[in-house]
């Protein structure tokens, strides 16, 4: 059996067609796009074309609103640091407790510099309270940064509506959309979103290329200065091959967006249903009725995620976990903690994330393997006895915690 890759929210395989369009920019058109000779004369055209391909996917009004960066994290940092530099009198930032570390760590650092960070909590299904959000908006807020889709659960936040509210209050709005772009349709020109981050490697382009969408007219300060590239908004010689690759990947994503929301979703749903029907004491986390079509995050109670992943890996299946042990940190995933998932379940969460390269056949293979994996580990668990958890598990096993 060939290996099954269900970790597409972590990163994706680069599409063959993407690799093909990139190669000439390594071997033939390797000139610096700023140069005036034949090694460079096709490069500017290639970049322009890529800019339009990105524009088409996210539906923005002008291609000059696309700034190529090195990754999603750079786009996120650029957006937030730009907002606070352009508005030095505003000392508050609104975000959520479940953002990617690219946002949370930056906010933590800004907090030390004296900024007030409002981290909006989520409910047990990972949803925000918009009434509370409205109350936070004020002329003291430099920027709101809220992810479009959560990387662990796939839960979608109402960013279009939130951007309207921010705009009405005169506050800039940024969304980290690295998980959402290419998976759900978007038309940015019809929204009040000021800035949006996307990352190439989440949609079958290579790693090391990202985009910051910057609505025309939004006040902006560059993170990197030093050259005229990207109209002076992001200095540094263009990563030409990757930019062209990202353009192609965006074109393909747009072509497949319906497939993503029908076929890919069907695979996800079949896996999810199969697992929850076959395996006792497991549940899907996040907002089941409002999430990405490709993601399911399932908590297996009384066992631990890294152990599950190791057994899956042995069976040739790649997924990921919100367990503390897979990251070397103290806590299970901050997303699981924010949703108030109990420790005994939060440590056993497994995320399966699909792409258009997966097949129904692979889903069936995973469904064959998964019950055995869970049963094997539960046999070792002090919370489990025979066919079910021990009676009142929290009482029956009360270890001394060091």
């Amino acid at each position, binding site marked *: 059996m060939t290996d099954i890759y269900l970790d597409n929210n972590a990163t994706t395989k680069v599409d063959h067609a993407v690799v093909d369009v990139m190669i000439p920019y390594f071997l033939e058109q390797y000139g610096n796009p700023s140069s005036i000779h034949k090694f460079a004369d096709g490069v500017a055209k290639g970049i322009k074309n890529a800019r339009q391909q990105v524009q088409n996917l996210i539906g923005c009004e002008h291609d000059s609103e696309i700034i190529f960066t090195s990754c999603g994290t750079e786009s996120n940092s650029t957006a937030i640091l730009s907002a606070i530099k352009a508005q030095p009198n505003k000392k508050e930032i609104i975000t959520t407790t479940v953002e990617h570390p690219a946002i949370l760590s930056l906010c933590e650092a800004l907090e030390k510099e004296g900024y007030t960070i409002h981290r909006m909590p989520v409910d047990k299904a990972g949803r925000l309270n918009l009434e509370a959000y409205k109350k936070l908006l004020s002329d003291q807020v430099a920027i709101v940064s809220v992810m479009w889709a959560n990387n662990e659960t796939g839960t979608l936040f109402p960013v279009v509506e939130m951007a309207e509210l921010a705009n009405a209050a005169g506050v800039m709005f940024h969304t980290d959309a690295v998980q959402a772009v290419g998976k759900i349709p978007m038309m940015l020109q019809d929204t009040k979103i000021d800035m949006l981050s996307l990352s190439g490697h989440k949609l079958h382009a290579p790693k090391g290329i990202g985009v910051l969408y910057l609505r025309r007219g939004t006040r902006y300060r560059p993170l990197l200065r030093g050259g005229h590239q990207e109209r002076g908004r992001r200095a540094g010689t263009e990563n030409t091959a990757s930019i062209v690759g990202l353009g192609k990947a965006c074109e393909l994503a747009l072509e497949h967006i319906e497939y993503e929301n029908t076929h890919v979703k069907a695979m996800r749903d079949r896996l999810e249903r199969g697992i929850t029907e076959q395996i006792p004491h497991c549940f899907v986390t996040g907002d089941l009725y409002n999430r990405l079509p490709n993601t399911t995050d399932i908590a297996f109670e009384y*066992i631990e995620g890294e*152990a599950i992943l190791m057994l899956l890996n042995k069976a040739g299946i790649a997924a990921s976990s919100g367990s503390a*042990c897979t990251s070397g940190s103290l806590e299970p995933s901050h997303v699981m903690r924010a949703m108030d998932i109990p420790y005994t379940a939060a*440590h056993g969460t497994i995320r399966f994330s699909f792409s258009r390269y997966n097949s129904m056949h692979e889903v069936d293979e995973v469904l064959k393997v998964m019950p055995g994996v869970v049963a094997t580990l539960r046999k070792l668990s*002090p919370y489990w006895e025979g066919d079910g958890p021990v009676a009142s598990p929290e009482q029956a096993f*009360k270890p001394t915690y060091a």
Partner: protein
Amino acid sequence: MWDYSDKVKEHFFNPKNAGAVVDANATGEVGSISCGDALRLTLKVEEETEVILEAGFQTFGCGSAIASSSVLTEIIKGMTLDEALKVTNQDIADHLEGLPPEKMHCSVMGREALQAAIANYRGEEWADDHAEGALVCKCFAIDAVMIEEMVWANKLRTVEDVTNFTKAGGGCASCHEDIEAILEKVLAEKGEKFDPEAAPVTKKPVVAEVKGPLTNLQRIKKIEEVLESLRPALMADGGDVELVEVIGNTAYVNMTGACSGCQMAAMTIAGIQQRLMEVMGEFIKVVPASEMKKLVNIEVA
């Protein structure tokens, strides 16, 4: 994913002594908050001889927690309780052919479960003697709680102090920002302010500064002096260092005791080299004595 040894994988995929021992007469239940891992160890102890006849484990945890539990039961079967009490977490890690630094606490959990089970058998109360915090220094596996305690206890003020007292930050140096954050926090609690430029409280071992180029004899004597000054720190960890040969400005040393075979040996050697260069004011290369063979071979050839 983690770079687990084959031994860890073997014990994870085919755990030994899984499940509770039937009619066990000793039980230890401990958890490591840093991983959410928890372990129940059950033993059957022969009353006259206090020999552990059977051992079984039930573990809620990651791959290395399960492997640590499994190998622990194998180690202690057939031991007397007194012998078993001498089993350290390093022994558990050694039997597994090493654990990643982030995962060393899995072996600590094994040792604690064993102590708890023996205390349970003897009708004693087992109390944990240390709290565990977030791992800060990955080179030497030092956590935040340990660093905080040392900063409090020894009035440490700089990153260099922390490195001298705990080794944290003495390797790749990438945790220095985190150590500064801890210093800032603890010093603020004490009503002081962290000053990155402050002179370290810890006095450097007194070794006379050297002026001018050294003769080989002077160089060897100086190296011996510096090693002597570093020895207490190494011996505190059950290790030692011995100077074998000096050729030009290369010093060949033997890491002995706990230092020998320690995953951190290379890091320790780098630290020694750094200290030597600071004191002697010239470039010195410190190399494990095992490398000397290669040198001799080259010369013979």
